[in-house]
């Protein structure tokens, strides 16, 4: 799949934003006053920026409101509904914490559950796609959820929880890669099944339908850049999970947490790039490419 920079940025940034809102909403150590204003502002900013970026990614952003209508079947619609609901429901708690120093736990808890559901909906948009076997697996949602919660915990300066979540994220990424490598073969799609000619003999593409490019190849058949997959996995695992977790074991200061956060986000960008670039769509079988 084509690793679109807008989608990579959107999923990483708004993931961290919603992750932060989860921890703020749960309010275990509820910030008030200026601290609350800054943290809620950051959560709303990241989540909102991601949503706005995804709207401008559309071919017809002026019709974006229609995306709230099909929540019965569509995870993309559910994501839109849940994301907006999170930002609305969390607002009284955010305002009361910032300006009146009195958190409103009911709105906080409800908002935190909605934020968690939003992250899950984002993950399900990819997980539901059966035509991309690497994504269509139970190991996909844990990566999105743990990445968002770990990023959120770093932003909220919860070092203990963040360390545990970063370790869990490392394990989840590893599981997603290792099991994902087997998914295409397990899905059972081949040039033979795609053409129905497999029973006759070994099938291969002789002539593509045209010599030039098309939308399908650009969007869904991404073969370049996968050759560095192993190095990028090490990079994503190291910067995204292992190193920030180790840094958090040092005596806590704003410097260590900021370093850990930057490392984590950089590693996560590499992970998200690979998430798209490594994922093979079965459609590639019709073009002799995977």
């Amino acid at each position, binding site marked *: 799949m084509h690793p679109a920079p807008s989608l990579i940025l959107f999923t990483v940034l708004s993931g961290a934003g919603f992750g932060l809102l989860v921890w703020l909403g749960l309010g275990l150590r509820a910030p008030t006053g200026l601290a609350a204003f800054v943290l809620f502002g950051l959560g709303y900013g990241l989540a909102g920026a991601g949503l706005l970026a995804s709207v401008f990614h559309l*071919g017809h952003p002026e019709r974006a409101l229609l995306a709230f209508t099909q929540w019965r079947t569509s995870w993309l619609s559910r994501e839109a509904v849940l994301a907006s609901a999170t930002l609305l429901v969390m607002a009284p708690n955010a305002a009361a914490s910032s300006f009146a120093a009195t958190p409103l736990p009911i709105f906080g808890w409800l908002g935190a559950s909605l934020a968690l559901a939003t992250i899950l909906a984002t993950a399900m948009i990819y997980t539901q796609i059966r035509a*991309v076997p690497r994504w269509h697996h139970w190991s996909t949602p844990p990566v999105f959820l743990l990445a968002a919660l770990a990023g959120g915990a770093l932003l909220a300066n919860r070092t203990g929880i963040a360390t545990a979540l970063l370790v869990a994220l490392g394990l989840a990424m590893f599981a997603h890669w290792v099991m994902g490598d087997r998914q295409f073969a397990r899905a059972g799609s081949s040039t033979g*099944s795609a053409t129905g000619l497999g029973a006759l003999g*070994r099938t*291969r593409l002789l002539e593509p*339908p045209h010599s030039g490019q098309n*939308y399908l190849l650009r969007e869904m058949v991404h073969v370049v850049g996968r050759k560095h997959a192993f190095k990028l996995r090490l990079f994503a695992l190291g910067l995204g999970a292992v190193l920030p977790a180790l840094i958090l074991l040092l005596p806590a200061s704003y410097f260590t947490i900021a370093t850990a956060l930057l490392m984590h986000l950089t590693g996560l960008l590499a992970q998200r790039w690979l998430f798209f670039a490594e994922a093979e769509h*079965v*459609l590639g079988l019709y073009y002799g490419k995977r």
Partner: protein
Amino acid sequence: MTTLPQSTRAKLGLVIDLDTCVGCHACVISCKGWNTENYGAPLSDLDAYGAEPEGTFLNRVHSFEVTRDSAAPMVVHFPKSCLHCDNAPCVTVCPTGASYKRSEDGIVLVNESACIGCGLCAWACPYGAREMDSAEKVMKKCTLCVDRIYNENLPEEDREPACVRTCPAGARHFGDLGDPESAVSKLVAERGGMDLMPEQGTKPVNKYLPPRPRDTLATPDLASLCDPAPEAASGFLGWLDRTLERL
């Protein structure tokens, strides 16, 4: 509504005969022609007269080679368009309700004025049947020529999809695959019509007819005929060979 209908009153679709298709691409051209001039946004071309031309097509013809153990290799031309699946994954992922499957005839369509151009339906389709038009930024797909098949302004023989009407080899058939007595259903039963990628669980309506078994020749060992100088010649040539070798 992006909820799929429980059942459809008819299952209109295509039956494509891989035995008969000659790979002429006439269906590709007639499809592009009809669907550019009629229903919905035109199918645009980019850089049409330049170095890297490309465009939106709803039907494309691929060609495959099948290598067989006990027979000569075979070339199969393979036209591919939307299969109007009963369990269409492209419909349920649509966030706006622009994609839908009609309960009256099972045709999968896009309401272009509600399409936000997110492209998720194209990702969900395992067959690559949907293409986003680069000029209009809306999703385009085969409509089964819904504006021809019910069009009473056209002569009756033209009330079938443009690709079927134009096919010079008679490799494309149109009809109701939900009716076991229809000509297409009988054809599918007789020729062993098959689904593409059944493992994807899409339950496609369109069927493909496999190439018929060919006559087989008692093929001689062709490789030996290609050998210009047999290893051990006999008779006069053998004597000459041995003598010249000894010199």
